[in-house]
């Protein structure tokens, strides 16, 4: 008896060791693709333009200028306001998708994702056509879209899917027994919501709020197009890096931008400590039952939101067919003949697709296995904490900073990874790194909801942990895994700020081409290329929905009763 116990203890510890080795490998990978590139740029904040060490001189200069305080305050205002608007809307929307029997949920889910299918140029163009000086609805915004108003509207549009994605994952999994018990105790609907639903989804809500907040803080694309004279920290980075090629000051602002991420990290840890597994081994998955009043409300609510999203997309679609806005509104297909506007034309579109597929495959594997290792490895707290920190970093870093960091790190003399520079591989790696955070959070949210008892039972049955991973964890989390893959794909299709520094002559990307075309004044053609990107991502999403349905039928049968 004792012999058997001892044997199993040895085996368990060997497994523990293997998993700890995995965590260490993960730290090494994250350091290579996130930590070191960032450091090689941020260190410039302590150097003068010629590379001599100057201590905190740049920081002193920056903090002495009144512009900083103003930009920081503006950034905070915009981020706080956008978060306050997005999170409740996204929560209700996600609730409608997961906890009601409203019709066409699959369609509503698809529509909610449209904003991340689009390069941030698209809402910029559409909002100017809708609310700009020549816009149809400019009266609605008091005649002036440029400035804080424009930034907030565009950010709400742009961040909405991120929040819906995280909260759908949080709300999708629930134990029906809790609701049955609450019903039996005659608890009111509100009480059930406050004591059962909300606590279960808390981690998702907080994560979503943190993601939206940091996304808004770091994004410069929207602020650049529609921000008017409203200075934010992210446009300050742009001024230093692109306007003046002053990497030292750019690094200083980049470092200041890390502050919200550090805050997000602390909050996440605090909330996480209290999160309990929702899906215990004995759990009965919750299947929403029809409730006419509730379903009607959510159908109406989701319809209003969906129309708002479609209006912006529709405006861009119409804009892409216009000959010369606003003086010649006749329609033409010419704007889709991309060879005319960019020598690389459709070739850059092919590059984008290749990069996005690469990012989806490698990124999903890395984020999911990484999140699993972090969640399921016993002990080893400090190193796991380091993973969490590294996983949070990319979201807090403006793409400009990450992209330049990649040049400094991967192009350095003597870096053995130098061969990656100016290849497709570095674009894929950069995209995985840049969008690591949301993938990691989604995977972690899904994993946290699985009772550790599954592992405990497997261990006592002497099933190796990797088999539990493949046979239990992966199938349960398959919806989340597919979500992560799609998320990486669509973001890789649209990303600009980081890859703009990294593409080579033969790896130019469609999103960069769209930006260049817009800069050349051919707004309609830029809108057209954006729409081709949207259509591609939408097609992939439709495939995903079909796959989801098929896989759900086979693998998720246990969710049904």
């Amino acid at each position, binding site marked *: 008896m004792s012999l058997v116990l001892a044997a199993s203890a040895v085996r368990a510890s060997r497994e523990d060791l293997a998993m700890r080795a995995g965590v260490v490998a993960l730290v090494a990978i994250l350091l290579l693709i996130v930590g070191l590139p960032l450091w090689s740029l941020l260190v410039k904040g302590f150097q003068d333009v010629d590379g001599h060490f100057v201590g905190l001189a740049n920081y002193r200069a920056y903090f002495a200028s009144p512009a900083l305080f103003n930009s920081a305050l503006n950034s905070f205002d915009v981020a706080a306001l956008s978060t306050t608007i997005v999170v409740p809307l996204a929560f209700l929307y996600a609730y409608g998708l997961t906890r009601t029997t409203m019709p066409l949920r699959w369609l509503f889910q698809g529509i909610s994702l449209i904003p991340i299918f689009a390069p941030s140029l698209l809402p910029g163009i559409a909002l100017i056509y809708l609310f700009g*000086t020549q816009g149809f609805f400019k009266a609605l915004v008091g005649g002036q879209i440029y400035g804080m108003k424009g930034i907030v509207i565009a950010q709400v549009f742009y961040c909405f899917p991120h929040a819906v994605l995280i909260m759908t994952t949080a709300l999708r999994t629930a134990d029906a027994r809790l609701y049955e018990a609450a019903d039996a105790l005659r608890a009111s609907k509100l009480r059930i919501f406050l004591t059962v639903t909300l606590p279960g989804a808390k981690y998702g809500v907080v994560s979503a709020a943190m993601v939206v907040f940091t996304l808004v803080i770091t994004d410069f694309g929207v602020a*650049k197009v529609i921000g008017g*004279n409203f200075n934010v920290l992210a*446009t300050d980075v742009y001024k230093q890096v692109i306007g003046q090629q002053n990497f030292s000051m750019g690094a200083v602002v980049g470092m200041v931008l890390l502050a919200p991420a550090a805050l997000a990290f602390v909050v996440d840890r605090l909330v996480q400590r209290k999160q309990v597994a929702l899906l215990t081994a004995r759990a009965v998955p919750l299947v929403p039952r029809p409730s006419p009043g509730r379903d009607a409300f959510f159908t109406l609510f989701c319809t209003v939101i969906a129309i708002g999203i479609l209006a912006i997309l529709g405006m861009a679609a119409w804009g892409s067919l216009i000959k010369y806005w606003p003086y010649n509104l006749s329609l033409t297909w010419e704007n889709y003949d991309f060879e005319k506007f960019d020598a690389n034309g459709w070739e850059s579109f092919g590059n984008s697709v290749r990069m996005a597929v690469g990012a989806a495959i490698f990124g999903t594997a890395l984020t999911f296995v990484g999140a699993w290792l972090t969640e399921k490895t016993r002990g080893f707290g400090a190193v796991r904490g380091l993973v969490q920190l590294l996983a949070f970093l990319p979201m807090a870093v403006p793409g400009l900073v990450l992209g330049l960091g990649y040049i400094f790190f991967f*192009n350095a003399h003597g870096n053995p990874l130098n061969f990656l520079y100016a290849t497709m591989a570095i674009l894929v790696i950069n995209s995985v790194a840049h969008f690591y955070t949301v993938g990691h959070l989604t995977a972690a949210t899904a994993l946290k909801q699985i009772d550790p008892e599954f592992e405990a039972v497997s261990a006592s049955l002497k099933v190796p942990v990797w088999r539990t991973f493949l046979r239990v964890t992966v199938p349960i989390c398959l919806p989340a895994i597919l979500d992560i893959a799609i998320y990486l794909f669509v973001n890789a299709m649209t990303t600009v700020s980081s890859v703009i520094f990294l593409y080579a002559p033969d790896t130019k990307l469609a999103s960069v081409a769209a930006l260049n075309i817009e*800069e050349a*004044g051919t707004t309609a053609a830029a809108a057209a290329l954006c729409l081709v990107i949207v259509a591609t991502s939408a097609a992939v999403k439709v495939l995903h929905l079909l796959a989801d349905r098929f896989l759900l039928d086979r693998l998720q049968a246990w969710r049904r009763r």
Partner: protein
Amino acid sequence: MTIARWTRRTLWLGLAAASLAASPAFAQKTKLTVYTALENDQLGPFKKAFEADNPTIEIAWVRDSTGVVAAKLMAEKDNPRADIIWGLAASNVGLMAAQGMLEPYTPPGAKELKPLFLSGKTPDTWIGMDAYTSLVCFNTAEADKAKKPKPVSWMDLTKPDYKDSIVMPNPASSGTGYLTVAAWLHVMGEEAGWNFMDALHQNIAQYIHSGSAPCVQAAKGERMIGIGLDTRGASEKTKGAPLDLIVPKEGLGWELEATAIVKGTKNPEAAKKLADWAATRKANELYADTYPIVALAGVAKTPPNYPVDIEKAMVKIDVEWMAKNRDRILAEWTKRYDGKSAPKAK
């Protein structure tokens, strides 16, 4: 089955033989990595014309906006990836020369060029190609609607007529913005220049982070007046925008586009061939398709919809003075106009 396999094998052999036969021709081609901020539609014709004269060299472009290309070149400083720069603002290229990032070289054709278009060093660190200016793009359709007069000088732009109707590039984020501001200070003198900008500030709707966007916004009626890159104004007018390109009587700020060989290039011979070609008459005639002012005298071709005699309006400004005073001017400008969230209450 066997027949199919046999067929396939001969096909492969044939392909292999064909590629072997073809490979020497390919092997001789030197791939030249060219960093550029030229306009997208220029790339095709430029590449075709150069490669026709130099069949052994193939151009691979890395093209983006001036700021991005300059930032990329500076970031790659310790391990350069570019062989040559062809079409980047001379002020950026000048900074790179000062940091020893360029391989000095004077092409034979350089002595034919206007002196303004040479770096002034021996051998030259860079060679100018063409010049662009920052002028006033005036939307006549919107002005007629609002019954506003047409401005003829920079001073006119400070009139209350144009309140909230003017956009210009932010000099802290756009090279075009800086050359505009520097020219004002140079022509008007420092004190009068800042006073002018104080007054102009009252009419500015937005300082945009781009040199080409102001004229595009004016072209699309987003704003009545855009101060910015002339080439963009002209091309928008050609496309059908109701735009007047105005040369204010005080004169125009300008910038050169330059060619320069990157120090450490692995293809110095091919890079020199391109530098030589970039100073030829043929090349200058190509530049003249887009720019009104080119390096070689006597290229009598002007792109459509440019104001006449724009070259005479270029202010006599010292490029080195512009570079030396940049940090000081930007700091002062930022303090005066950029520190506030919005220029005025609406």
